[in-house]
C-alpha cells in the first residue's frame, strides 16, 4: 500500500503489563497490503515535550476490520502519552513505512529472534511465514518473565523458546546463551532478528560464522520516517543508508558493524 497519513481510531488499548500497551487502530479506508517489518509513524498530541512523530513497528494487520496494531513500550514522554490514549480517540498515523523482511519463495526453516520491544516487528512476520508453510521457530529474550507478554500469540505460528536475564522463564541469560544458538543453529536457513543493538550484533556475528542468512531490523532516531530528512542513517558497506526507507530491515552483511 502507498504511504498515507490518516487519523486512525483507537478501538482497543490493552495494557499488557506495567509499561507495555497494545493499541489497535482502525482505518476509515480499506487497507492494502502491509508487509512484515514495515512501521508506522504516530503523532503524539497534547504533549509540549513531544514534537516529532514516534515510529512503531506494525505488530499485526487485520484486513477484515481494517486495523493495524502497535505494541508500545513506555520509555519516555511520547510512548507514555500514546500508551494512555483512550479508546475512541484518534491517532494521526503515517503508514506503512520502510521496507520489509524477505519472504522466501519456497518454504524454509526460519528462526526469529526478538528482544524487548523488538518482538513487535516479528509478529506479523511469524504469521505470514507460517501461513506460507515455513517452519518457524521463535526465540524471545527479555529481562524477566513479566516482560514476555506476547508469547501466546507467537505460539500460534511456531515453536517458541525463551530466555530471561533473571531466569524467571526459559534459559537464564541472553538469547545468545540459548542452546538453539549453538550447534542446532545449522538447521536454519534464515535468521530474522529485531531488538537491542548489542543483541542484534551478537546474533548477526553468530549467523555470519555459521553462514546463515540474517536480516536485522534496526531502530534509529527519526525526524520524518519517509526518507527526506536524512537523519536516520545506518552505516552500510555502500555508505550511509536511511533506516526509514532503505531499512528498517537490512541483511546483516550489508551493515558496517557486522564486519
Amino acid at each position: 500500500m502507498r504511504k498515507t497519513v490518516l487519523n486512525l481510531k483507537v478501538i482497543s488499548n490493552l495494557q499488557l503489563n506495567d509499561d507495555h500497551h497494545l493499541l489497535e487502530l482502525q482505518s476509515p479506508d480499506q487497507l492494502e497490503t502491509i508487509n512484515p517489518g514495515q512501521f508506522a509513524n504516530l503523532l503524539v498530541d497534547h504533549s509540549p515535550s513531544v514534537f516529532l512523530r514516534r515510529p512503531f513497528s506494525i505488530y499485526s494487520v487485520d484486513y477484515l476490520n481494517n486495523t493495524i496494531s502497535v505494541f508500545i513500550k513506555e520509555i519516555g514522554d511520547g510512548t507514555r502519552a500514546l500508551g494512555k490514549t483512550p479508546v475512541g480517540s484518534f491517532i494521526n498515523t503515517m503508514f506503512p513505512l520502510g521496507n520489509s523482511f524477505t519472504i522466501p519463495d519456497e518454504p524454509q526453516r526460519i528462526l526469529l529472534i526478538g528482544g524487548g520491544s523488538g518482538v513487535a516487528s516479528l509478529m506479523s512476520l511469524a504469521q505470514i511465514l507460517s501461513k506460507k508453510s515455513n517452519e518457524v521457530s521463535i526465540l524471545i529474550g527479555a529481562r524477566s518473565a513479566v516482560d514476555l507478554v506476547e508469547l501466546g500469540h507467537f505460539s500460534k505460528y511456531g515453536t517458541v523458546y525463551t530466555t530471561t536475564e533473571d531466569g524467571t522463564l526459559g534459559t537464564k541469560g541472553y538469547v545468545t546463551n540459548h542452546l538453539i544458538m549453538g550447534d542446532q543453529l545449522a538447521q536454519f536457513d534464515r535468521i530474522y532478528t529485531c531488538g537491542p543493538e548489542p543483541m542484534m550484533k551478537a546474533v548477526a556475528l553468530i549467523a555470519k560464522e555459521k553462514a546463515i542468512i540474517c536480516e536485522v531490523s534496526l531502530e534509529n532516531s527519526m525526524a520524518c520516517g519517509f526518507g527526506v530528512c536524512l537523519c536516520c542513517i545506518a552505516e552500510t558497506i555502500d555508505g550511509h543508508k536511511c533506516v526509514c526507507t532503505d531499512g528498517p530491515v537490512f541483511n546483516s552483511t550489508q551493515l558496517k558493524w557486522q564486519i
Partner: protein
Amino acid sequence: MADLSIKVHNLELKNPVMTASGTFGYGLEFDDFMDVNLLGGIVVKGTTIHPRQGNAYPRMAETALGMLNSVGLQNKGAHYFATDIYPKLTKYKTNILVNVSGSTIEEYIACAEIINELDLITGIELNISCPNVKEGGMAFGTSCPSIEAVVSAVRKVYHKTMMVKLSPNVTNIGELAKSAEFSGADSLSLINTLLGMAIDAETRKPILSTITGGLSGPAIKPIALRMVWEVSKAVSIPLVGIGGIMNATDAIEFFLAGASAIQVGTANYLDPSVTIKIIDGIDSYLNRHKFNSITDIIGGLHM
C-alpha cells in the same frame, strides 16, 4: 479565490509557498502524500560538487518545539543530481530550485555551473549558511567580505535566479544581507538553522555526533520573523521567509514582516501535506480580510 501568484525577482510563483531545502527531499518522496505541482516551488536537498556522506550518526535531537540536525549536506554530488535525479523531476510543473553548497568558492562555482545547464531548474538557492559542515558552509555567511566573494563569484557563472540563503548566527543580519544584495543576489531566503546543542544528561554525552547542530521548528519562529523584518528594512530585493512555519497564520506573519514568499521546513516531517493546507489557509485569510492579492499584505505590518 484571491490571487496568490507572486514574482520573487524573476522567479514566477503560482503561490508564495515553497519548501525548504533538506526537508522535502527531491519532491518525489511526497508524491504519495500530495500533488507537488500545487506548490509555488520546491528547493531540493543541499547539493555539492562532490558527493558527501554527511556526518556520522546520531544526526538528530528533538528539542522544545524544535529539532537539531547535523546531517551535513549528505548528497551524491551535482553530477549525479544532473544525470540521475534531474530527469525524474522534469515531470513537475512547478519551480525547482537547487540548494547549492560548497567548502570553497571553486566548489560553489563548479556546482552552480552544472546546475546552470539544467533547463527546468529555475534557480539556485546559494547556501552560505549550513552550520553542519566543517569547512565552508556557514563560515561564508557570517562575514561581509566572504559573502561578497562567494556571491559575486557564483553570480558570474549562474544566469538564472540566484537566491542567497542567510545564516541567523550573526550579530547584524541586515549588514550581511546588504553584502549579498550588493554582490548580485536576486533575492534572499532566511533563516537557515540556528546553531544549537543537545546533551543527554543520563549518558553525559552530546546527542549529536557533531556535538552541535542546526535548530529548526516553531522554537525559532520569533527569531526568524525578527530577522526577516530587519532585513526587509536593509535591502530592496525580495525576501523568502523561513523558520518554524507550521500553518497559514505563521506564513501570514512572515508576509507582514516583509517576505514575498515563504519556505516550509520541519513542518513537512510532521505533516507531509502541510504545504497544501498552508496555501488554502492563506487564500482563506486573504478572502476573510478582503484582500485581492497576496501582494496586498507583503510588508503590510501596521506600526
